[in-house]
């Protein structure tokens, strides 16, 4: 079992606090993603789990036993680096054999010339070669085994790095932005391959990325980090539909969530001239942020439903759907609306002047001055309807 438990991890570099009391529990076989802007501490968590960086306080448990006192190789974790960190002077096969060679041969047997005298060495090396072959076949790189890393493309290097981590059958795979050095097309492809690999291996994956799309598309659960803390931990759908913090709402989702500021009144929230009938628990007269996903806005304002006045500024046509960029009539604040191409074509002529955009209040997310989520009545009903 490779259930992973982090308790109260803290870490500072000099006076900079990189991790601030991070606790996290990862189930056996789970694909968990740590996502956040650069410098939020996500890579440091990975390095602490791997044992490359000692934590100042807190503890790491893998499979129920504490690994704090263990060296990286004894923790039975594998790591894939953003730079792949392949040994440039070794062939693909040698790169992939490395963890097994270090495990199974003693110091004398590893020596360049003297090692060959050992009868054990030949036997072990044959075994390793067979295992490397099996993994290489799984990753479809068996034809590359004799090449050097410099002769490989980015995607191939990525596979070799994966292969090197797979040969040792680790309890936990740690991946530090493994796709960010690939071009956009290959990245999408490797995303699918990685999730597929995760399913086949059934091993715990801890994946670090700054790309929210990767986090959303690959993970079982996502932990969004900021300033050394986990802001929210949940399923991708949770983070999108039900963010607990303004930072989460802003980070997750593309195009970004629309944030308009409003003031609470007895009847709802006033945004400019419009009154959105959202009743929150805050006292009246407080400034709040209203988050509206691009799909919570519509071009057809239903009579009686709340709407805001805005003017079209830019159109992004993606083929099947269209992102329409508006500026709010009173404040000029930007709004993005997600529409189907048909909807856009239907309203095209009307959009030349200022228009009223329908607001689906049930999907509005309200945040108080400190950025914390404030629940509201119409929202609570909506939450049930959100698919998990």
């Amino acid at each position: 079992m490779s259930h992973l438990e982090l308790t109260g991890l803290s870490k500072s570099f000099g006076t900079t606090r990189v991790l601030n009391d991070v606790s996290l529990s990862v189930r056996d076989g789970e694909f968990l993603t740590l996502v956040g802007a650069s410098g939020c501490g996500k890579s440091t968590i990975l390095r602490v789990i791997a044992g490359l960086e000692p934590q100042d306080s807190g503890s790491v448990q893998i499979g129920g036993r504490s690994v704090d006192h263990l060296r990286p190789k004894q923790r039975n974790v594998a790591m894939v680096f953003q730079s792949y960190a392949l040994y440039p002077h070794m062939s693909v096969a040698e790169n992939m054999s490395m963890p097994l060679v270090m495990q199974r041969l003693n110091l004398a047997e590893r020596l360049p010339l003297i090692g060959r005298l050992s009868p054990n060495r030949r036997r072990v090396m044959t075994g390793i070669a067979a295992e490397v072959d099996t993994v290489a076949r799984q990753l479809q790189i068996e034809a590359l085994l004799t090449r050097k890393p410099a002769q490989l493309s980015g995607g191939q290097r990525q596979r070799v790095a994966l292969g090197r981590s797979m040969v040792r059958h680790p309890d936990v795979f740690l991946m530090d932005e493994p796709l960010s050095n690939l071009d956009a097309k290959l990245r999408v492809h490797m995303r699918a391959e990685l999730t597929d690999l995760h399913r086949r291996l059934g091993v715990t994956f801890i994946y670090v990325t700054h790309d929210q799309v990767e986090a959303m598309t690959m993970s079982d659960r996502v932990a969004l980090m900021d300033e050394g803390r986990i802001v929210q931990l949940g399923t991708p759908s949770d983070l999108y539909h039900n963010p607990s913090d303004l930072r989460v709402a802003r980070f997750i989702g593309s195009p970004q969530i629309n944030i308009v500021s409003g003031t609470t009144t007895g009847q709802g929230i006033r945004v400019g001239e419009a009154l959105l009938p959202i009743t929150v628990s805050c006292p009246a007269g407080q400034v709040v942020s209203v988050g509206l996903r691009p799909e919570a806005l519509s071009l057809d304002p239903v009579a009686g439903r709340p709407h805001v006045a805005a003017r079209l500024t830019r159109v992004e046509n993606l083929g099947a759907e269209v992102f329409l960029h508006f500026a709010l009539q009173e404040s000029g604040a930007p709004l993005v609306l997600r529409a189907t191409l048909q909807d856009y074509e239907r309203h095209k002529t009307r959009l030349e002047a200022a228009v009223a955009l329908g607001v689906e209040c049930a999907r509005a997310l309200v945040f108080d001055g400190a950025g914390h989520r404030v629940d509201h009545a119409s929202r609570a009903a909506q939450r049930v309807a959100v698919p998990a």
Partner: protein
Amino acid sequence: MTVALNTARVSPGRNAQMRAEALAGYAFATPALILIIVLLIAPIVVVFLLSLTDYQLGALDWSWVGLTNYSDMLGDRVFLRSLGNTFIYVAIVVPGSVILGLVVAILVQERTKSKAIYQTIFFLPVTTTLIAMSVVWHFLLNPALGPVTSLARALGFSDFDVFGDPDLVLVGLAVIGIWQLVGFNMILFLAGLTAIPRDLYDAADIDGADGAWDRFARVTWPMLGPTTLFVVVTTTITAFRVFDTVAVITRGNPQGRSDVLLYTLYKVGFQDFNMGPASAMTIAFLVFVLVVALAQAFIIDKRTHY
């Protein structure tokens, strides 16, 4: 058809433009080319021509002697002895200063606060004048007055005279050579060490290569390949040119056991004024240096770059 017409119409203009560009290129390269010819090629040609004559420095007449100087040189015991001594000297200095330079670089790199101080200390010998330092070393190792010999005596060793002992003299000179070169090699190795990506050490840690030896053998040493090659070549050439210490301290003594190539060349050319034989030796010297440089360029270079 249109395409063919177009190319036909375009090509004369393009040809003219290419010619103009080529001409401009040569024009830009000319000053450098002239300098190379005047400063490097011409002197070598002159030396080679001199080596075919019996020219004596200051003499008014001279004659061609063909390859006599070369055949004399190959039969000359002093020349062969100094060549042998030079090789022994190189064979001690190169491994000594390269290995020490690497060890010092690795040790210095792991320091954080004191790094700059150590770097400066080890680099100091490089900045000094070897002639002046030779005098200091001569004194340090003086059998009667030198602090090193006094210390050895105090520790119970028997008396020794480094520069007077035929078996020790080359070793003594080599130690000075190493002392002077270690700092320079250290700087080169430090540059090489800084260029090794940290990720590789992290990967090695996770793969289980986390002992000092494994980290060195699996990451540091292979990654330093190009640097090491460069250091070996520059050190070999520098060591081959040993002259200052011999000229100041031993003058080739005792019994010619510290005669080295450049010192013999100097004696023949500027004490005996025999420019012909001296030029022949210079050509021999150039050939050795050239061989080392070519070995780098063609054989080893391919095997250390990944």
